[in-house]
């Protein structure tokens, strides 16, 4: 109640409190990380306006318009904005934020968000806040530092607040009954200085997306090679309908693709169940998964640091344990 009153007072003490949220589309709608961003945005103060970029903007906008908490959707539908290159979208975001007097801008801490947010900060002369995990009040946020070994509560002195949101810390906003109006963005701004998109290679997978999966099975150096990784991890993940993750050691040794890396420098996940197979548990890796609800560690080294964070630990040879576990599930 107190925080509600504080919010009301706050919103009256300024002209208004308005949040713009950058929303990314995926093939079947809004990216899960963007839905979490909308939840974080609603915690700051109403109303929330979503902005969508790219030539397929209309279909993404249609999905965003149905999302709870979104009061308006802006669409910048132009091939120029495909791939959301920071040089192209930042100047337009700056213009929209200034013209429509948004007080907050949020984006997911995705590779797009991380690329766009700071460039926008430069254009607005604002120090952005990275990867918030909690909204304390409209200007105060909690964010992890030192690979999640400490939590910093920071208060921004900027007049416009720019922040990226750690998706695993906020539940995704519900997509359903809402019907927010959709408006086309007609203005455009040229930065006149951009890198050019050449090509992309996206790893195709039938599995749930790593960042938002409720279950994750991760493999590490202990799997020894790519063959064992595929033979042991794939069937277990399939059985559990889990996403596959990996430690940096596994990625560096070529067991699987870079985009599966869980850790400070890879994906941050917080699934209901995280199974770490042959992963020692270096600080770097723990930073990416220690907020999981239940952590299971399977490792032959009884002293591996992963056992310090695991809810359930099994010391054993993964070549025997994993096939047995897969069979018995």
């Amino acid at each position, binding site marked *: 109640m107190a925080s509600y009153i504080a919010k009301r007072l706050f919103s009256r003490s300024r002209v208004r409190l308005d949040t713009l949220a950058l929303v990314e589309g995926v093939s079947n709608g809004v990216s899960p990380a963007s839905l979490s961003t909308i939840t974080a945005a609603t915690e700051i103060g109403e109303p929330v306006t979503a902005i969508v970029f790219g030539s397929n903007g209309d279909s993404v906008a249609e999905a965003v318009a149905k999302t709870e908490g979104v009061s308006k959707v802006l669409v910048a539908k132009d091939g120029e904005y495909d791939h959301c290159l920071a040089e192209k979208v930042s100047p337009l975001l700056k213009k929209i934020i200034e013209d429509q007097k948004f007080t907050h801008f949020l984006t997911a801490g995705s590779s797009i968000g991380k690329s766009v947010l700071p*460039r926008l900060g430069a254009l607005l002369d604002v120090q952005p806040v990275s990867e918030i995990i909690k909204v304390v009040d409209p200007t105060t946020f909690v964010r992890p530092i030192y690979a999640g070994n400490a939590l910093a509560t*920071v208060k*921004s002195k900027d007049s416009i607040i720019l922040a990226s949101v750690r998706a695993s810390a906020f539940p995704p906003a519900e997509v359903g009954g809402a019907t927010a109006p959709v408006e086309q963005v007609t203005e455009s701004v040229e930065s006149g200085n951009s890198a*050019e998109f050449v090509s992309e290679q996206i790893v195709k997978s039938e599995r749930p997306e790593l960042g938002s999966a409720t279950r994750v099975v991760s493999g590490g150096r202990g799997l020894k090679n790519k063959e064992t990784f595929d033979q042991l991890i794939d069937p277990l993940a399939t059985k559990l309908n889990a996403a596959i993750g990996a430690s940096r050691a596994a990625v560096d040794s070529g067991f699987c693709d870079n985009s599966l890396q869980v850790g400070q420098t890879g994906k941050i996940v917080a699934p209901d169940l995280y199974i770490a197979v042959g992963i020692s548990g270096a600080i770097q890796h723990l930073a990416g998964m220690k907020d999981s609800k239940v952590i299971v560690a399977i490792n032959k080294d009884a002293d591996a640091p992963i056992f310090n964070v695991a809810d359930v630990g099994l010391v054993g040879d993964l070549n025997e344990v994993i096939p047995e576990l897969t069979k018995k599930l």
Partner: protein
Amino acid sequence: MSSKLRILVPVKRVIDFAIKPRINKTGTGIETKGVKFSINPFCDIALEESLRLRENNQDLVENIHAVSIGPLKSQDILRTALAKGADNSTLIETTTDNDVEPLQVAKLIKKIVEKEKSNLVILGKQSIDDDFNQTGQILAGLLNWPQATNASKIEINPDQNNEVFVTREIDGGEDILKSKLPMIITTDLRLNEPRYASLQNIMKAKKKPLNKLKPQDLGIDKIENKLEILKIEEPPSRQAGVKVENVDQLIEKLKELKAI
């Protein structure tokens, strides 16, 4: 503009990556007394990449300049950068106890870019202490230069007016961006494996230029952080778990925890 590369590599001195940081008694920061500091791993990769660009294209690179912003002790990592192969360096010495924020860092580096006439800045994608992942992008915004973040491969084509191709790690896979110079690149872990400095080169590095400046010398009178740190605290610790003997017990335990 000269067709040769003048590369600027900003490097940061941080608590060594292998050390678990401890929060100070007042809950305002991280204990730094008696703690081992090193070059930020991503900055090391940025430096390595600039050295390799020169090694792979003998006539391409005119100069590699390393710059660091921080207390006087940061000159140690500049000496390391010089020992590995940077030609010259600048320390912008700060006196504040707090870390300088990315926006302020980028404003200072912009001055060095102008001073050194740099046309390519290679930075680490993030420092492992504040985990911001911002400085490169802010610098690109301030200069209005193209940016390519999270680089896992960098190719420069001297026959095509030094056109740069950067492979980037993105969510779900990778993409390739193309750009003309000048530009900003930030490095991902997978870009390369940094070298070690030999003793001989460490000795030689003592004679290489290390220029010490104050922010005032660059026309920046006051470094003003915009994020006030209200408190620093430990993340909630996890309950101690149990060890099970075999797979059956493991499955039983998971059912008990309602995880399956």
